């Protein structure tokens, strides 16, 4: 069963066609990978789903509710939560204060403690967010989103700038939520990371849906190799 259905979403900015008749079904409980060349429209799609920008045309069904997309406040109420490509947290506040805000909006404030451990924030609780190491900041951004107990989590390039242990930690985290039944829409240019985690993958190119299928099919699809992975798609070796 699909938790999210997009029907013929189009959006243009002046002359730029950012989304061109995109239709997509995201099955419940799975991690859905979204890739595509730079400027393909991935972030724009997240903006549309989360309600930050209304599309020019098209509609969205979420969890049986028709007439989407909704304004952002409504979407969040329905359980659609996003992170931002450019990491966003309350930069002027300490981590503790950030989490206090998270607790204020969370339906289950008592689980914030868990999140702190899972995201590895315990040692940096009293530091100002703007001074955090990059990885910790990314995790904080994700912790804020998770505090809302989303049903659909939109992750826009969460792994940017992460390496080694940090990347692994993020991978573990995502798996855990998947197990907890959260549906995840994951945008990521780290192909290995994305393919490892995703159950299904869609590829956007210049606003159009180019491909949709399993990660394996995706990596051998010539169109995808041509437009996105490149012949030296060696990052993907197993």
């Amino acid at each position, binding site marked *: 069963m699909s938790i999210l259905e997009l029907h013929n979403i189009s959006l243009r900015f002046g002359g730029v066609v950012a989304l061109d008749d995109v239709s997509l079904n995201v099955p419940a409980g799975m991690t859905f990978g979204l890739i595509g060349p730079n400027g393909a429209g991935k972030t724009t799609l997240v903006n549309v789903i*989360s309600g*930050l920008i209304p599309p020019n045309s098209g509609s969205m069904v979420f969890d049986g509710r028709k007439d989407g997309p909704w304004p*952002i*406040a409504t979407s*969040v*109420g329905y359980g659609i*939560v*996003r992170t*931002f490509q450019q990491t*966003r*947290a*309350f*930069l*002027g*506040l300490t981590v503790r*204060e950030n989490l*206090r*805000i*998270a*607790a*204020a*909006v969370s339906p289950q404030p008592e689980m914030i403690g868990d999140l702190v451990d899972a995201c590895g924030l315990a040692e940096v609780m009293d530091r100002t967010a703007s001074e955090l190491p990059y990885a910790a900041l990314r995790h904080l951004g994700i912790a*804020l*989103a998770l*505090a*809302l107990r989303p049903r659909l989590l939109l992750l826009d390039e969460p792994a940017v700038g992460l390496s080694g242990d940090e990347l692994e930690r993020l991978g573990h985290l995502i798996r855990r939520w998947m197990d907890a039944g959260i549906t995840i829409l994951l945008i990521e240019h780290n192909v290995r990371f994305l393919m490892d985690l995703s159950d299904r993958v869609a590829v956007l190119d210049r606003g159009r849906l180019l491909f949709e299928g399993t990660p394996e099919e995706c990596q051998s699809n010539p169109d995808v190799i041509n437009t996105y992975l490149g012949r030296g798609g060696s990052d993907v070796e197993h």
Partner: protein
Amino acid sequence: MRPLLDYFVPISLFVIACASSLWINDYFLYVVTIGAIFAVLAVSFDLLLGYTGYLSLAHGALYGVGAYCCGILTAWHGMPFLPAMLFAGLFTGLVGALIALVAFRTKGLYFAVLTLGIGLIGHQLFLIAAPLTGGIGGFIGIPSPNVPAWLPVRQVVYNALLAFALLLVTYLVMRAFVRSRFGAACLAVREDITLAQALGIRVGWPRFAAFALSATFTGMAGALFAALSNFIAPESFTVLGTGFELVALVVVGGLGTLWGPILGAILLTALPEALRVAATLSLLAYGALLLFFIIFYPRGIASILRRLWSRLGAALTGKLGGV
């Protein structure tokens, strides 16, 4: 332990202030009373500026709304002071809520200037609505608060006690607000409104509540000011005077803390009095001291005290650790 400390410190400071008001002379008492009223203003103002991130320049006018409201109720309708003050506060809160509805369509400097406009309109209305306010000639004959029979103190002392009590209540109420979920939401609005929205915070409510609450206490401060001055005139409620002075109090005290603005208010009301000795140079000296302070402590008194506090803490633990 913490709740005990939480209430112990402000309440004991309040008791000390009340006790000392029996001692000091009328002049100091007046300065301190005015300082306390400005502290009420500053704390209310900081709820909006420091915790929610909106600079309202309409507060000078809101202060006036409370003052005139109290004047009309007590002088014309014979209402006793305390209910009049409450009523004035509620009325001002209502006016504030209306302003908030309009002003929160904008943010940043746009909000500041929009409220500046509203503040100026308010001041002009005090002038124009002469039948209600007395116009430029001022509102004359506002009765002083009645000293209750069981309290054997003089009027001026009673005025001071009222101001201290109002300050204490304001502080406690504002602190409760700040610590509530609303307070957390306000912080989120201040730091990053898009992220706040993305987190499902209905940003309209917390900032609206902050504005209305801030206006309510601003109105009560105005009411008290009116009652202890016996006379008010539009000149006390200008944007250039009161409006900007509030910003100075809060910034000098320390933005985003509730006790910082209290210190800022006391310092900046005492300063011009201390500078009376400088006679014709007093304004110049005031400007120079303000500039000096802000250049060296751009984050206000609160930042100095915090630094001292942490240094003290470090020194103590260092000493203990050494033993």
